[in-house]
């Protein structure tokens, strides 16, 4: 009954394809999907090499996980400590309960300071809040300065990966985008040439910008300072030149002490790209003389997730993207197939908490292979949470009557030995006598590209009765 009373949700459902459908579409271009798979597998391999060089790697993961456990258990007090110390340092701290409040804070700051041009370094949080579109609609010139983000901004796309946002594009395609937007030579695909063009273009934007927006990798409760990690130095270039710095931070990005940073910095870049550390690890504590610094602490569903016992430790995530690089499904279906800000395994346990109906197919986009859990630097039990979301979704998500009926029927057969034996015999018999076209029909998804097993003349149970028990 309820499903007809919510037209808004229904229309959303229609426009959100299932992960399976989006993945199938991506896989139609076999060459591209193999290229995508190989590219990300290469990153996973680099991570393995980097981790192998650290004898205490597994201890580091344990430490990081335990520190984050402590943070999640004491988040309220740590946040207040962080706010107090940051404020005393001269940072204006703002709280946002959701995406809208976050965006309104940013807008107000820009208006108060009469800023029209701003540069941004990578922040998945601002993607989550839809900040770019919000500001662009109000006439602001928002320039993403991370190379990958600038490429997809030109291409009017969202990131397909949280660390490598344009990983879905090939060099040639980037050349075409730059030809159109930056006037580079048609057909150019030399990375050095294209990067230089982007560099020159972005230098102008850095100089013009009056405000710089950054994300936050780690906020330190003890000091009130925060750390931003980039490989391109774009966060630094932006914040050093602009009069004001707005840092947007999810409330779970906190760590207790400066001494804890070493644990996370050693894990982050190695897990993400196989580098020992990001090229730039910038520590911000207070605004420079005559400049302003704002820090917006965003909830946007995080305290709800904290309240879900089975799913709370998904908030340990440090956004390294290792689970995406290792996930055999992500590599073969690309980030867009997930239809969520954070794609891949971690996205599939975070997103249902934000919108269960919209993201109801994501926890099923997994074989529960567990590779994500084993690469995770903060030891989030991702595949176990995928399993648990499945249990929630079949009860509270969109109804799937035929699947439900089949599972109920299956469960019933499996609880009755005689019925099971009889059904098994019937199934084997019908597979033996039916014509091939009857078995391999359009409803048989297994048989589209696979043969069914050959049918043996008897079950093991029949064999056992004859050969072991009289």
């Amino acid at each position, binding site marked *: 009954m309820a499903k007809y009373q919510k037209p808004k949700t229904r229309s959303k459902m229609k426009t959100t394809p299932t992960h399976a459908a989006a993945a199938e579409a991506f896989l139609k271009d076999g060459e591209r999907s193999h290229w995508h798979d190989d590219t990300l597998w290469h990153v996973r391999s680099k991570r393995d090499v980097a981790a192998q060089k650290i004898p205490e790697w597994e201890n580091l993961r344990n430490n990081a996980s335990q520190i984050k456990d402590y943070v999640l258990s004491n988040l309220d007090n740590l946040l207040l400590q962080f706010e107090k110390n940051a404020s005393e340092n001269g940072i204006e701290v703002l709280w946002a309960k959701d995406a809208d409040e976050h965006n309104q804070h940013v807008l107000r700051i820009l208006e108060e300071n009469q800023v029209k041009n701003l540069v941004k370094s990578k922040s998945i949080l601002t993607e989550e809040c839809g900040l770019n579109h919000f500001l662009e609609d109000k006439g602001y010139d928002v320039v993403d300065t991370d190379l990958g983000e600038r490429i997809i901004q030109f291409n009017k796309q969202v990131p397909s990966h949280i660390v490598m946002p344009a990983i879905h594009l090939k060099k040639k395609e980037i050349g075409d985008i730059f030809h159109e937007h930056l006037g580079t030579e048609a057909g150019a695909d030399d990375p050095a040439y294209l990067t230089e063009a982007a560099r020159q273009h972005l230098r102008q934007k850095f100089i013009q910008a009056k405000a710089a927006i950054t994300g936050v990798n780690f906020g330190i409760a003890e000091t009130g300072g925060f750390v931003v990690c980039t490989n391109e130095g774009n966060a630094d270039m932006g914040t050093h030149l602009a009069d004001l710095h707005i840092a947007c931070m999810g409330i779970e990005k906190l760590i207790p002490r400066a001494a804890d940073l070493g644990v996370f910095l050693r894990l982050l870049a190695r897990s993400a790209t196989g580098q020992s550390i990001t090229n730039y690890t910038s520590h911000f504590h207070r605004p420079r003389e005559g400049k302003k610094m704002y820090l917006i602490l965003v909830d946007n569903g995080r305290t709800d997730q904290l309240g879900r016992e089975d799913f709370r430790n998904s908030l340990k995530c440090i956004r390294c993207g290792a689970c995406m690089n290792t996930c055999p*499904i992500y590599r073969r279906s690309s980030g867009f197939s997930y239809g969520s800000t954070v794609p891949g395994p971690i996205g599939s346990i975070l997103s249902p908490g934000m919108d269960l109906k919209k993201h109801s197919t994501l926890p099923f986009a997994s074989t529960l292979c567990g590779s994500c859990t084993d690469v995770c630097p903060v030891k989030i039990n991702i595949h176990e949470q995928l399993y648990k979301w499945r249990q929630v979704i*079949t009860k509270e998500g969109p109804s799937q009557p035929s699947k439900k009926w089949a599972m109920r029927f*299956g469960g019933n057969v499996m609880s009755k030995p005689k019925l*099971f034996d009889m059904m*098994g015999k019937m199934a084997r018999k019908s597979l033996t006598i039916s014509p091939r076209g009857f078995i391999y029909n359009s409803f048989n998804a*297994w048989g589209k590209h696979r043969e069914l097993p050959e049918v043996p003349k008897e079950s093991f149970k029949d064999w056992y009765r004859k050969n072991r028990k009289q």
Partner: protein
Amino acid sequence: MKVGLFIPCYVDQFYPQVAIASLELLESAGVDVDYPLKQTCCGQPMANSGYQDYGEGAADLFRKNFSGFDYVVCPSGSCTLHTKDHIYSGKDNEPKVYELCEFLTDVLKIKNLKANFPYKVGIHASCHGLRGLNLAKPSEIMGVEFNKPKQLLEMVNGIELVNLTRKDECCGFGGTFAVFEEAVSVSMGKDRIKDHEEQGVQVITGADMSCLMHLEGILRRENSPVKVMHIAEILNGQVPKTQNQK
């Protein structure tokens, strides 16, 4: 030591030779093994699809069938893991559940086998056995290498084990994932097969028949000469049979 043999539902129905090999391996090691005739399934297909409640009847039946045994041994990593995680809670009065390979290496401490298998073999490391039961060291985890299925296969005469490019990537079976995410599942399976084929593998083996059923389905559709065999069959001295192609 009283051992109950648990044979997964699809192995009972479609791969009786795997169950026979498992039984004979245990018998020839002198184990007092019994196969409770009222067994069906552990309930994993329902549970992994999000309907754990519908698998409760199967779980109750399972506990009834195997009460009184010291050990439950099963030739499938995935079903073993499900049983450990969702049917038992690790109490002292419950039977201890072991996947066949780990039972042979850790409990029986098998040191040699009579089997002969003069073929080039690739091991498919099924995920639930690998990462859930720790049958081997997963490539993601840092530390000392170990591999229980490989340890057993190395006792087989004449066998040639190959090194794969991606030694423990998932094959894409994943239970109902194989049908609900058919395109990704098949793509993953084809990639796994390609890795084995590039190393000149004649037989793909592993400790989970479900993954092998998926790979076999693709191999037979593509008329590949590569065969699949459950590890119990090789350890028990069986040789590849000629399979019918499509």
